[in-house]
């Protein structure tokens, strides 16, 4: 086996394949870099900024930096984790992330990140926006209160399902998820429960109806082990997984 090139992640060598990002190489090596908008089956988005690391001294999103460009990457530092905690707090403040009543609790990446980073406080004044839910679809419930604008459903619907069911509208603090129908309701689109877009939400916006609490609270994915111990579950799934 020929030696693969490597970079240093927090002082430990991480091997990579040509074309891999710092994030992909790290996850493939079982090393977790906190992230929200990254998904192993989609092109990097670079928008949540949670995976920001110091790559040879410069702050860069590890999901978008080619591993070839990196020599020394710092990720698990107090400075960066402090910034990550702030990002998580800002997301919690911006929406209505009321975990006690959320079906996704225990499977939610935002919540898991909060646990893993030790976010104990609100940090910011919560905005309590008024965002009605959309229950118009017979099989899917949309709860916009929990959207973190990762665009995974938008990307999945466009790139995999070929349906363009979702989009982001508005700018800045007004930015929000919309449904591509004249009525704005999911029931008036050709969305189907089997669509890729319906299974990629990292939080609790897109929920299948009649499946609630199938797995009890306390026995769910991130109840069992912290997200930082699940790096390999986010590793590139197949070579062509880096779509496009």
């Amino acid at each position, binding site marked *: 086996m020929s030696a693969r090139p490597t970079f240093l992640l927090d002082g430990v060598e991480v091997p990579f394949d040509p074309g891999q990002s710092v994030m992909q190489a790290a996850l493939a090596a079982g090393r977790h870099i906190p992230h929200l908008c990254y998904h192993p089956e989609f092109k990097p988005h670079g928008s949540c900024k949670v995976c920001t690391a110091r790559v040879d001294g410069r702050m860069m999103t590890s999901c978008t930096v080619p591993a070839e460009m990196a020599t020394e990457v710092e990720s698990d530092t107090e400075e960066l984790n402090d910034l990550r905690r702030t990002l998580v707090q800002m997301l*919690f403040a911006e929406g*209505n992330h*009321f*975990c*006690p*009543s*959320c079906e996704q*609790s*225990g499977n939610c990446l935002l*919540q898991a990140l*909060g*646990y*893993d980073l*030790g976010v*104990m*406080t*609100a940090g910011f*004044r*919560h905005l*309590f*926006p*008024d965002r009605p839910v959309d229950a118009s679809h017979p099989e899917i419930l949309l709860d916009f209160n929990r959207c973190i604008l990762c665009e995974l459903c938008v990307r999945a619907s466009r790139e995999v399902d070929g349906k363009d069911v979702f989009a982001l509208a508005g700018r800045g603090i007004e930015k929000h998820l919309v449904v591509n129908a004249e009525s704005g309701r999911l029931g008036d689109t050709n969305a189907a429960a089997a669509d890729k877009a319906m299974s990629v939400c990292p939080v609790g916006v897109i929920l299948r109806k009649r499946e609630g609490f199938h797995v009890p*609270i306390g026995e769910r994915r991130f*109840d069992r*082990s*912290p997200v930082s111990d699940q790096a390999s579950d986010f590793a590139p799934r197949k070579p062509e997984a880096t779509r496009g």
Partner: protein
Amino acid sequence: MAELARPKLKVATASLAGCFGCHMSFLDIDERLFPLLERVEFDRSPLTDIKHCGPCDIGIIEGGVCNAENVHVLREFRANCKILVAIGACAVTGGLPAQRNHLDLGLCLQEVYLTEPSLGRGLIPNDPELPLPLDKVHPLHEVVKVDYFIPGCPPSGDAIWKFLTDLIEGRTPKLGHGLIAYD
């Protein structure tokens, strides 16, 4: 013997706009209450029924701030407690009661007491004994300085035990995986 001679820490607890679930969860430390009681004694608390908080080492408050009385109790705790702890989702973020924050308070009262048939007395309660509700529900730290936060709805007995033992032993309280929870 030096261990026994240590003065007990004074602890006060209260529930503001909460459901007493965090207090119930505190009781879930079960028989660990006995070793705890060797180190602390309770001042104002639902456990003692003392009505006002005297000088204390640790104040633990569950529930957010939803009415004028909550503000008074919270300020009394802050004035008397060296360390103030917000326990549970409501105290930390506003929690369930704060789910009314995107609504107009007047319309809420109207809906409950006038529109809704079940309570149909045609009157919004206005007895002077009743504390006036605040326009919005606030987490504790928006009203007074809070020293520590324990999230969870409620935090588990184990989380509360870990927090209290850390604090009493002079360590920085730290909840790890399985103890830190938002649900």
